[in-house]
Each structure stands twice: as C-alpha cells, then as structure tokens.
C-alpha cells in the first residue's frame, strides 16, 4: 500500500460523522464541520463541509499555509509560526479560500486601536518629489494619499500600493469611499471627482450648480453612515453650500447651509472647511474660518440634516479655532486655538444653555495671544481620546473619571519615545484600522503608528 494511494479512506467514517478529512497538496488534515462553517457561508470551507462524497476532497494548494488558516478557523487567531510567512503570501492564499476578511479582522480591526500603546513604527515612502497634501483612510485601514497630481493607495496590510494620475494639480480634500474608490476635490479645481483607484479613471464628477454659473470648488468632505457631505464654494467665492449625497448611489439628497453673499457679510462668506458627523446627536458639525486684518474669525455650526436648520452655532472671534473635532464618546467638542495653540473643550450637554463656552485646558493667558501660534495644528478624536498635533508632536488627551467632582478633568501626554519627539511639522493626521497615520511638511512619506502587538 503506497502512501496516499487511492482517495477512498480506509477507515471510512460514517457519513453523518462530524469529522471532515481534507487532502491539501498531499497532506491530510482532519477537522470538524463546525470549524469549517465558522469561515462563513459561501466560502470554500463551508462548501467542503457540506459535501457528502465518499472521496477525500483534494485541494491543490500549499499545505503549510492551509494549516495556518485551519488554526485561524479554530481559534480566531493565526498561530505564531505564521510570522515566518510573508503576510502578502497569506493574503493571496486567503483570497483563494475567500477568507480575507478573517485576516483583516485579526490584524486591522478598528476596535483594536490602543491609543496608549501606539508607537512610530513604519514609514511608507512615496515616489516623486511631491509631499502629501491630504490622506484618507477606510475603517479597516486602507490608506489613500494624495501627493501632487497623484493619489497612491495602500492596502489594509500596507504591503501593496498603486498610484494613479488625476486632473488636479494638488488634491486638497480626499475621502475614502472604499479601498478602491475615493472622492477628491481641490480649492483650485471645479467639481468633486469620484476616482477609481485601481484602474485610474474618473468614475463621476459631482458639481454644485451655483447661481453665478461659475465652477464650484470643494472645501471639505465628510460622511455619516448613509450620506456623504461636500462643502462647495463657487469659483467667484460669492456663494457656498453643503450638499448631501447618498453614500451608495452618490445622488444628491438635499442641500443645507446655502449662502449667497451680498455686500460685506463676512460671516456667510466663510465656507465650511471641516465636516464631521456626530452620530449620537444625528447632527453635522460644519466649521470654517477666515483670516482678515482684524485676526482670524470663524464659526462652528451644528446642522440638523433632515430639516436643514442650524441647531446651534458659535461665532469665534477671540482665539478662533485652528481645528475642531467632536467626540461622541466623550460627548464634547474640542478645538485647538489658532492664537494660543491650546486645546479647549465644550460639553455637548451644555449646548444652547448659558454655560456653553470654551474651557481652555492649557495656559489660559495665551488665549489673548497676538501671535498665530496654533496655525495649522490639527485635532482629531478616536474612541475616548483626543489627538492634537502641535508642530512636530502629537498630544494625546484623555479624560480622568473622578467619582465626585462635577468638573471634567482632561490630561495630556506627548506621544512617542524620546527619539520621536520633534521633527517636521505635522500636516495631516488620520486613523484607520488599528493605526494612526500622519504626514509631515516636505517629507515624501506617510508615518504609521501602531501598537507592537498588532505589528504586521
């Protein structure tokens, strides 16, 4: 009896047995039907578990990688011996079996972001001489980077990249619709382009028909689970609006905050340059600022998208924001002041009441600073933390819950080890999967911060 000869098993288990035997590239594997079906319906594994053929199923693939995937199915994690394989090999093989999503889940799940354990670990270099102008991420960590007239896409494993050429001279607003689809707009180019990043063509151009019949430039892009929000300004800069699109069909749904500017009404002349959806309140935060001879002034509005009305709004005259963000889980709005460079917060519960004012978390005297110390600082929130870039560093703000006190306490830490402090000014800050991405001025690369346990 030569080894492996014949496919009929000698000790044929009963057909109702729970045990399944599979021959992969000459090696025998045994497992249970439950394990196989845990890969999900319509995958290759669930099909095997359903066959009642007396023959052992044979798969003409590499047996070593198969054994890793079997462990993944059994335990939900890849065994440590998977480290000796290149992740890209595993991804290709997982696509064959139709279980790439299991790999994504075990490596790049957004719930696995560990803010206190993020360390500067990778640099993704970009070819050519253009520095990144904007970055966008998908929830599971694919990354789109615009640099000059090009957009480079990195897959969720950060192993593969591809680059396309666009019509823009530089992309100012970038939004990831999917790992292979992005919306891009610029301050000097009319229309929002939906770009297929795999084949490199413009799928669609979305335009806002303004009254003056001039072009419409894109100032900001945001999204809710159902909608995409785009802030347009007419090329003549005399009108602006936020258009709401259906996220799936990309058809316009409604238009909010349409402003036509007559005379010297400065406040309505400011288009929104940041749009953020506040899930818990079903509101859209839109903020925009304007630098004039009397300093920087701006406004923050919370929109009810259904009624198209402003629920709450604040005008910023003293220490206007350089950047604003709203944290759902902290139920607070955070800004970094353009003059002070300090972080302030406002409790969402107090909105509309007397108490709604900014609470400065840093040096309060700097609020009246004449300099623009905070110019270009970015603030983003992820989970229970707030990340604020200051020059070349990132501050991490967290709330400390003290049972009795009524005042909220926020404390900051500087991210990174001693060697990571400083560096060129941070120009973009984004989160995707379990990672933080940032770009720096005049550096043609993207920096990746991740926790050591999630290292790919």
């Amino acid at each position, binding site marked *: 009896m030569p080894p492996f000869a014949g496919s009929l098993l000698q000790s044929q288990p009963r057909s109702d047995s729970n045990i399944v035997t599979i021959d992969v590239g000459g090696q025998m594997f045994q497992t249970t039907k439950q394990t196989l079906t845990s890969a999900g319906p319509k995958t290759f594994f669930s099909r095997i578990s359903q066959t009642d053929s007396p023959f052992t*199923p044979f798969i003409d693939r590499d047996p070593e990688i198969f054994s890793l995937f079997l462990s993944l199915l059994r335990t939900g994690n890849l065994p440590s011996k998977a480290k000796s394989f290149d992740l890209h090999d595993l991804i290709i093989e997982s696509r064959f079996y139709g279980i790439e999503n299991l790999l994504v889940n075990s490596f790049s799940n957004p719930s696995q972001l560990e803010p206190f354990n993020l360390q500067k670990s990778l640099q993704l270099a970009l070819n050519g001489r253009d520095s990144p102008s904007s970055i966008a991420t998908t929830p599971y960590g694919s990354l789109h980077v615009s640099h000059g007239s090009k957009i480079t896409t990195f897959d969720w494993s950060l192993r593969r990249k591809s680059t396309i*050429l666009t019509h823009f001279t530089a992309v100012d607003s970038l939004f990831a619709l999917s790992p292979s689809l992005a919306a891009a707009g610029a301050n000097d180019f009319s229309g929002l382009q939906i770009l297929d990043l795999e084949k490199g063509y413009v799928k669609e151009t979305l335009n806002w028909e303004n009254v003056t019949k001039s072009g419409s430039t894109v100032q900001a892009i945001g999204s809710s689970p159902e909608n995409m929000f785009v802030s347009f300004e007419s090329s003549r800069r005399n009108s602006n609006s936020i258009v709401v699109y259906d996220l799936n069909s990309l058809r316009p749904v409604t238009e909010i905050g349409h402003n036509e500017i007559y005379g010297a009404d400065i406040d309505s002349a400011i288009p929104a340059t940041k749009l953020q959806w506040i899930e818990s309140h079903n509101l859209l935060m839109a903020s925009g600022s304007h630098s004039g001879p009397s300093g920087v002034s701006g406004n923050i509005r919370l929109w009810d998208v259904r009624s198209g009305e402003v629920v709450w709004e604040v005008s910023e005259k003293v220490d206007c924001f350089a950047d604003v963000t709203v944290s759902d889980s902290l139920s607070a709005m955070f800004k970094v002041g353009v003059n002070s460079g300090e972080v302030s917060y406002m409790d969402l519960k107090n909105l509309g009441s007397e108490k709604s004012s900014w609470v400065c978390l840093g040096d309060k005297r700097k609020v009246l600073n004449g300099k623009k110390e905070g110019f270009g600082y970015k603030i983003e929130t992820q989970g229970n933390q707030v990340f604020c870039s200051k020059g070349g560093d990132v501050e991490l703000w967290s709330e400390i819950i003290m049972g009795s006190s009524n005042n909220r306490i926020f404390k900051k830490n500087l991210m990174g080890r001693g060697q990571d402090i400083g560096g060129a000014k941070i120009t973009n800050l984004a989160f995707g999967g379990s990672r933080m991405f940032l770009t720096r001025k005049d550096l043609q690369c993207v920096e990746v911060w991740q926790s050591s346990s999630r290292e790919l």
Partner: protein
Amino acid sequence: MEEESTSHATVESNASDRIKLNVGGKLFETTLSTIRSDGPDSLLYDLSNRSSNDPNPVFIDRDPEIFSVLLSLLRTNHLPSTALRFSKQELADEANFYGIDSHLRAATSPPPFSGIDASIVGTVRPASEGFPSTFTAADNGSVWIAHGGQLSSYDWNLIHSATVRTHLDEIKSICRVWPEIAAVGTSSDAGLHFYNFSGSRHVGSVHWSDPTDPRIFKARVNAITASENSVFASFDCSHRENCILEVDKAKIQIVSQLGRQSGNQAKHMVPMKLTWIQTTGVLVGSAVTGGAFGYSGYIRLWDPRSGEVVWETHEPGASGRSSRFGDSFSAIEVDVEKLLLFKLCSKSGDLAMADMRRLGDDPWVYLKEKNPSLWTDGGDGSISSVVHCYKEQVFVGRGGELEVWSRVQEVIECESERERESDGEGVYRRNFVDKREDSGKGVIKKIEGGGDRLFISREDVEGIEVWESSHSAGAISVL
C-alpha cells in the same frame, strides 16, 4: 490583482487528475492541470504523461525546496516569499530545468512601468571600464551596454551573460539587430560593424563608398536603427557629406542609399538619431546642434522604398513657426506605438507634440504645465536635455533631473470629450520621477525603456541606473 476576491477554489475529487511527485525524497501531490499549465514543451508535462497508470510517485532527482517554490508558482501564478531564500539565478536555472521559465519570467518581471510611481531598483555596473558610452534595452528587460570598447550583455534578470571586446575604442551608437548580434558604430573609426555575443566575434562590416567620388571614404556611423529585414545607419565623411545606408540584416550587404546631402548647413547635417516606424514603413531622422546662437536642427521623414522625403521641418527658419520664434528644439523623439513626434524647446523648456498622421505646416501642439510651481524658468538653453518615449509616457532628462509627461485617463463614458481633447491639451501632466537628491548625481545622457524598466546613463557615472515601478509598498521600519 493576482486573484479575484471571491473564493473560486474547487474540490478535486477525481483521483486520475492527480499526480504524485517525489522530488529529492520529498513527496508532493498536485493536479495534472497545474503541472501542465506551462504548455506541452515542459519537462513537467512529459512527466505527467508517463505516470498515468503507474501508482508510484514520479521520482525527480532535484532539490525539493526549490521545487516547492516553483510548485507554488504554478498553483498561484505568484512567487511566494520563500523564493527570497534562493538567488534569481538559481530559480531561473531550476525553472529552465523543469521547462517553466516563461512562467517564472511572468511572475518576476516588474509591473507595467509608470513614470509617476517609479524608483531606482539598482545599477548595472560593468566590472571594468564602467562608464557606458551608449546602451540599448530590449523588450524583455535585458540590456546591452557599450563601455570602453567592450559590449556587455545583461539578461532579463540583469545578470551578466556575455562580454565582447570590439576593435573599436569608444562605441557611440548601438542597435540590436538579432537576439545575439549588435550593430555598432563610432565617431572615431569608420564603418558599421556587426558583433555576435555567442562566440564573441566580429561577423561583418559595412562601409560607405562611392566609386565615382573618391572623397567618400572612412565614413563614420552616427546613428543606427533596425527594421524587420534591414539596418539603417547614417554615415558621414570628414568633409561632412552624409547619407543613410540601408543594409540587409541577414546578408550584411548594402541594399540602398538614401538622403545623401552635403552637410554644409545645419539642415543638411548627418542624422544623429534614426527611428524606424514599422507600422507606416517610414524612417525618421533628426539632427540638432547647439552653437553660440542657440540650437538648430531638422526632422526628416523618408520612405525608404522610394528614397524620397515624406515630410521635413527645420528650426530655426522654417515657415509657420512665428509663435515660437527663437525657441528652436533641442531634442527630438518619436513615439513609435502612438505615431507621435515630440520636441523639446530649447529656450522655454516646453514639450511639443505632433501627430505623425496629420503632419502639416505647423503640426505642433505645445503641452501646458498647469502647476505654476513646476514651470521651468526658461533658462538659457544651456542645460543638456534628452527625451525618450516609453509606454505612452514621455521621459525628459534636463541636466540631472528626470521628469515624466503622462496622459491622464479620461472619463470613460465621455466619448465626445475625449475627441475634443485628443489634441493633447490638458491631457498630459508633468511630474518628477526622481527625488531632488537624485538630480545631483550627474547629467542624464541617455534614457531608454524596455521590459517595464527604464535605464538611465549619466555623464561621468559608472554603470546604468535601473528604474522600476512596484506594487510593493516598501514600508521601512523606523522603530
């Protein structure tokens, strides 16, 4: 992408489709379709036929580790990372043994070359006299380098395969005539010479002579190009009289002579660049010289069958060029696939394009740079520049800087708009291929593409740079 995202695995249950192999003592099992995937000429295909009614595994006395890499390649069309344990040469030799080298080549060759996303992957450096005088790249990514009178051949893996010492001292022009035979010429010695890499020997020479004119002797070769059956070479004598000779590739004999001219004016100089256009059967010759009063030169298209000039232009001075007065071209290139002519303006640094199917009085369309930060500051025209077309992209070397003009993909549905913009305006974008620090390495002398690689030689720099595009993200750990 290599694989579709959906699962398309099938369960093979028919035992007769399968085959067991014993490679150096290790057992492998696979399907017939997998090991036959490289066509009936391979060794594996032969083995798969022999064993159909023998229950014992087929024994192959080779290394099992390399075989497992190659088996993965056959199964997935993708080389696993374990292949990094072996050198390119080992893999190529082993794939040759099994007769699956074309499969290996398809998996290891670089992805389509894109100038907007390319980086230096290495330098091909000949062992001695490493300053290349000229070179030529082939479609499979191999390259022939002329350096110090030697001709070195590097295969598609860029591994050195042969070197021939020629009787010439500095080869100025080279052309691939047959897969193993190069035609070479030099400005210091007369004649067109043919060298064969296998056997490393001289196989023939061609000289320009005219029995009626004794002044025609010791004519030197300035440019060479090859068509399917012929080689075209431009010769000039010391008194500047010049012509193009058509030479039969197989017999190495002169077939005809065309474009003979006196050479006493810039527009009658010997062609410094020749390009054969297979699809239309037209030979394009051009010459440019730079002098105290700027650049001057010509472009001429011949029909070699009649020997007549089909179209010509010369700058400065040709009619209909008033819009670009004093901005004559400093370099010329032909896009053979798309039938386009490109010229680089010496003063403004602009690139202009002409459709060869619609050449007229002033066929040039000037490509505009929309990005103000990339505008060239004009310059005095003293920067040496080269132009090369590859894969519908135009590569321009200005001094040490390398830039690319590439076409932006149009909206697919919008047919009419594509028609409107097909004149080139707004469709081409300019980007730098290199990093700022690359440009200091030396003035770019020659650019040539082949096999999805771009080869670049620089003045006073040893070796030839190899640029490739890659899908690998190339993340660098900074922990």
